[in-house]
Structures are given as C-alpha cells and as structure tokens.
C-alpha cells in the first residue's frame, strides 16, 4: 500500500524477539548423506535394513514353502501314495504349483521393495 504522489516509506522489519532464539535448524538430508555424517549413515542403514528384512522374509518363505518338501516326505512316508487329480502329489507341487508360487513371491517382493524406496526418497527429499 503506497500513499499517493510520494515515495513509499522505508520498510521496517518487524520481528518477534523469539525468532532469533528458537528457530529449528533445517536438515538437508542429501548433503548429510553425501558428506557421510552420522545422520546420513543412519538414513542409509535404515534403508538397507528395511530391504534386507524384506529379502530375508522372502528367502525364509521360499525355504519353508519349497525347501520343506523333501523333509515332509521323509517325515510322512505316506505322502508318496497321495494323488491329486490322478497325479502324484510331488508331481503336482514341483511340476505345476511351484511356479505360480514363485512368481507371486516375486511380485509381492517388488511391490514392497519399491515402497521402501519411495519412503526413503520422501524422507530424504522432504523440504
């Protein structure tokens, strides 16, 4: 707002006395990571741990789901005689059912891993 016909009055900075004291320091995460500070390392370790946890979950599921089959045949010899749709159970599991199971595990993994990365990107680039 300027008064008519004259020079505008000089602006005067009006501040509360508190601002100089208590303004929170903004952290720029990418530069923290680049200069390898403790904080930057923490971000990377958090991402790595999340991704590793995810990988371990998939590997353990695979070990139990597929790797447990020989063991269950040893423990329960009667499984040899089980037929599904006229085919031996082992043939159904290893010849057909295993593949959709593997693809499903992979699909779930890719979704979760990309979500982890999105979370990391949002956390790091938050203004």
């Amino acid at each position, binding site marked *: 707002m300027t008064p008519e016909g004259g020079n505008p009055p000089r602006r005067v900075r009006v501040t509360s006395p508190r601002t100089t004291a208590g303004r929170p320091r903004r952290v720029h995460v990418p530069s923290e990571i680049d200069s390898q500070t403790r904080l930057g390392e923490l971000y990377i370790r958090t991402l790595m741990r999340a991704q590793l946890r995810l*990988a371990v979950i998939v590997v353990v599921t695979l070990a139990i789901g*597929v790797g447990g089959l020989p063991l269950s*045949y040893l423990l329960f010899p009667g499984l040899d005689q089980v037929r599904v749709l006229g085919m031996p159970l082992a043939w159904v599991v290893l010849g057909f059912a295993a*593949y959709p199971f593997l693809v499903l595990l992979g699909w779930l993994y890719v979704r979760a891993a990309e979500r982890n990365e999105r979370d990391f990107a949002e956390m790091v680039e938050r203004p």
Partner: protein
Amino acid sequence: MSSSYGITAVALVFIATLSIGAYGWRFSRTTSDFFVASRTVGPALNASAIGGEYLSAASFLGIAGLVLAFGTEMLWYPVGWTAGYLMLLVLVAAPLRRSGAYTLPDFAEGRLESLVVRRFSSVLVVGIGWLYLMPQFQGAGLALGTVAGTEKWVGGALVAVVVLVNVMSGGMRSITFVQAFQYWLKLTALLIPVMFLLVVWSGDGAVSPADLSPDPHGVWTSPLASSSDHPMYTTYSIILATFLGTMGLPHVVVRFYTNPDGRAARRTTLVVLALLGLFYLLPPVYGALGRLYAPDLIDAGATDTVVLELPSRMVGGVAGDLLSALTTAGAFAAFLSTSSGLTIAVAGVLSQDVLGRRFRGVRSFQAGAVVAVVVPLALAILAEGVGVARAVGLAFAVAASTFCPLLVLGIWWRRLTDVGAIAGMVVGGGLSVVAVVDTLMQTSRDGWGGALLAHPAAWTVPAAFVTMTGVSLLTPRRLPRHLSRTMVRLHTPEAVELDRGPYPL
C-alpha cells in the same frame, strides 16, 4: 525320423539367428553397445532376452531326459533354476545394476577396491563360463547326430561358428534381439508338439506314467533323489546349488547391466520369473510321456534325445516328422542363445582383463570371443558326455560356492574385506572344482564319498560363506576406503540425487 525335415529346421534356425543378428548390427557402433547394449533395453524385451539366454540345452533337452530316467526328483532342477531367479531378485538384482559395473570382476573391484579380487573373479568367470559352454556344444553334437546322423563334433562346431559370427559383429545389442526371439521360439517348439502328444495320449486311454508296473516302492514318483545312496543329502544339495548358483552365473549377471536402472532391473527379473515358470511347465511332460512311449531310450543311454524323438514316435507320419523338426529347431535355439550369452560374458572379461593391453575396444572384445568359444569346444570334443544337465549342474555348484557369497555379502554386509573375499572364493571354488574334476573323470565312488563329490554344493557353499565372513572379521583394518559411498550407490534409488562417486561409463 526323416532327417531332411530336421536338417531344414536347423538350417532355418541358423539363418533366422544370423539375420536377426544382422538387423541388430545397425545399432551396434560403440564399445558400450557391444558390452551392455548401452544400457537402454526395456523390461519386456530384456526379459525375453534373459529368458532366451537362460533356457539352455539343459532346460530344453536335459530335464525331459532326467525325468524320463529318474522321475519326479529331477523336477528339482527346473524348480531350482526358477527359484534361483527369485533369490537373484530379492538379494542382488537392483543393487547389482546400481553398482554400475560391466561384469562380475568390475563389481568385485568396485566394491572391495582391490585389483587382486578383480583378477581372481576374472579367472572364475572364465572357468564357470567354459564349464557351462562345454555341455552346450556337446548337446548340439548329440542333437544334430540324432536328426542328421552326423559325427558328434559337427553340431557343436556349427553352433560355435554361428555364435562367433553374431557376437563378433554385433555384440550385446544384436544378441539381445536374437535371444528375445529365441525364447519365444523355444516356448513354441515345446508347446505346439505337446498339445498333439497329449491328444494322442488321451486317445490311448491316458495311462498315468506314475502307474507303470516296473517301479518298485514308488521310486519314480518320489521327490527325493532315490537314485542316490543318500537321497536327502543329494536333494538338498541340488536345491542349494540351483537356488544360489543362478546369481553367480556370468551370463546371467552381465544381463543386468543392460537395464536402464535398478527399478527396471527388478521389474525385468519379475517378468523373467514368469517366463521361466511358463516354459518349465512343458519339458517334464515330455519326460513323463517318454516313460510310456520311449522307455527304450533309458537302456540306450540316450534319454537326452527324448524331446526330439517323441513327436515322430507318438504322432507318426509327416505330421510327426514336422513336429520333431520343430523341437529340433527349439533345441538349436537353446544351444545358440545360451552359448551366445556365455560367449559375451566370457569375452567381456577376457578382453578387459587379459587381452585389453594388446587390442583396443571392440577389437579386443572380438579376440576375446574367439578364445571364449574355442577352448570349451575343444573340451566338448575331448571329454565325452557327462549328461547335459549334470555338467550344467556342476557349473551351478561352482557359481554358488564362489560368486554367491561374494555378491550377497558384498551387497548386504559392510564388514567384508578383500582378504576375506579372496579366502572365501579360494575355499569354495577350490573345493567345488575338486569335486567337478572328480565327477568329470567319472571315477565311480560309493557311499558318502560319492554323494559328497557328485553334489558338492551342500558343503562347499557353507564353507565359502563361513570362510568369507571369518577372514573378513579377522582383517577389520582392510575395509575399503570408499565403503560408505559404495553402499549409497548400491542401495539408494536413482531418483534421489546423491553423490554416488564416478561411474565407469
């Protein structure tokens, strides 16, 4: 089976391979084109190419032969080869692509900042590559011998020549197109005949192969390796080798660098998983039907030819011959695509680490390709068959005992040191190579000694992991200088702008 159809089919595959390769030559100009197709291959094309490259003679001929001979327990091979891709996906796919390296030795050097580790990895890549190429050439000799009655060396030599022409003239760029085409050819070549076979089978009363009388104690239907003295040990050793070996195969790993970024690498791997699952539904059906219609192949020791023989035997007439010609074409697509991929991987390493000083750029890549092909071809002619799938299985065992721990620990464990990595690879590689040589010499052993040497992965892989971690913990002062930056590079998504250090290309 009439040989003229088979020979025509093989000739057509050779011509198609060379002309698609020639189409790709137009795009191949720079060194980067030759090694990694300039990292611009999208997931759909790349996944078909990876599938085409991965499905080797062992997948196309070997699985059906093993199922025919030994039964359900052999289904662990295709399941393991697919699950190996899942392990690769969750443990190494994206970080490996983000490492920005060309080859496995590049990764080893970049992560551990040691030239000695690099040299050692190079030797291993070449060794595993040759061990894997040898059965491809043997399989080609066997297949051409079956359809055309040629000498055993002819098929392998023909495949070697076509691979060399393609690889030397177009490198990775043109091979990507060729291998993508070959995946779909292989799938078609098994899918169409199997429909005819199933019609014939149900017309004959649909007797279950599992119900045949000469099968005491249900051995053929058991998922345990009942042909071995120690079924549990053998089964778990096969599982370990195939699940963990895939990520260490040189031609599989080199493909990851053709993806544009880490996210694409993951999505590509997922598509590959689906393509492999689709393909692996088919070969066991041939093996099972072979038990009904071609049991004489077991006594003849020619079970690897069941995929080629079955259509003409079951369908008969011209239709049967044409279908057999189709499976023959698929088999040659398998030899060509896998050998091309392995040749590229081995040639890349040879040219960078051995021949690079004498030749430059593309020229040294071409010299590497010649060496990469000639040695295993000679081996294939000298060493008579161990069975296609068995020889490939040994390559998996060596890869699982060396590069698997290097990749997994290198990516996920900060305290890995160069000394630890070398010690682990020496122990794992040394032990598994001893077992491989023993098996190739075909010394027959009984009891535990035989089981341990024939399927070494179950003890060599843990030995390699333990040595690598143990020695690394004993040498904590040897951590690489740029460890933190390397970890940032391996694990952060490319979209976040960070200092990742200099990239090789």
